[in-house]
């Protein structure tokens, strides 16, 4: 004898499939239109597929935060100016992103400047 639960599943599936087959032409046409609207999304210029850039953006963000953490808090006593909003704007400009790779170099420059100012003062 068949398991009653299994029987319910099979009969439900059969009825459901029958109702799918019976969908009328007007409904099918509207589904077709909806599908084409969805496919147009793929062709729309300016649609940025974030999924493609998400890993690169993630790595960049982590590197940026790590660089700031490694650099530590600004040493105001040594005469180095704290990082200002303008510095961040410069760093975040699209064509200045390569600066992120040279943060260590710029930190060194800051340190050298501070040392020079200290010597002069």
């Amino acid at each position, binding site marked *: 004898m068949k398991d009653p639960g299994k029987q319910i599943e099979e009969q439900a599936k059969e009825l459901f499939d029958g109702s799918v087959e019976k*969908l009328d032409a007007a*409904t099918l046409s509207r589904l077709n239109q*909806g599908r084409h609207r969805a496919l147009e*999304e793929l062709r729309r210029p300016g649609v940025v597929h974030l999924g493609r850039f998400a890993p690169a953006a993630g790595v960049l963000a982590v590197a940026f935060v790590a660089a700031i953490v490694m650099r530590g808090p600004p040493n105001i006593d040594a005469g180095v100016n704290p990082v200002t909003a303008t510095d961040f704007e410069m760093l975040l400009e699209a064509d200045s992103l390569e600066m992120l790779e040279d943060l260590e170099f710029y930190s060194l420059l800051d340190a050298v400047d501070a040392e020079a100012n200290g010597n002069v003062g």
Partner: protein
Amino acid sequence: MSACAGVFVVSCTREQSTGAMALQREQQLNRFLTEVERRALRIAEISVRDRDEALDLVQEAMIKLARNYAERPEGEWTPLFYRILQNGIRDWHRRQKVRNRVMVWFGRGTSTEDDYDPAANAPDPAGRSPEAQLQSSEAMQRLEVSVHALPNRQREAFMLRTFEGLDVAGTAVAMGCSEGSVKTHYSRAVHTLRDKLGDHWQ
């Protein structure tokens, strides 16, 4: 000069290759949506009991899939699509609750439950007699009412497993819960339906 020409050729080849890949992806997505759209519509329709609303929900899910997940591997599309659709259905139910509360406040009820007629008057593609069609459509109507009456999560689990044929893992992704929860919801749904429909279907 020849270096410039070389760069131009490489650039053109790369563009052609990207265009071909985009076209291929579009064809894959078209095939996928064509395959899934009718079942998705009926699943949405059983959930919200309104064909127009169900059509809107399915279209919205198709657009969101194309916009956000077209780049994902094809094998992931089915659970992702149903996850979007189920979220849409849940939002729809929330909006309906709010709307009904407002309508009750202003003294107007909704009559969608009474007006709904799930049996379409289309000719039977299987060529069954009117009596057989009537029996089948009555059985489907009973099934729809019973599935609709299930608690939301049980209804989702039952429809995704039985109607769409997703496995437990795929259903868990579509429902945004653990596989254990899917098994529990599904088992409870089958028991409830067996109790409700058993007498008619034995």
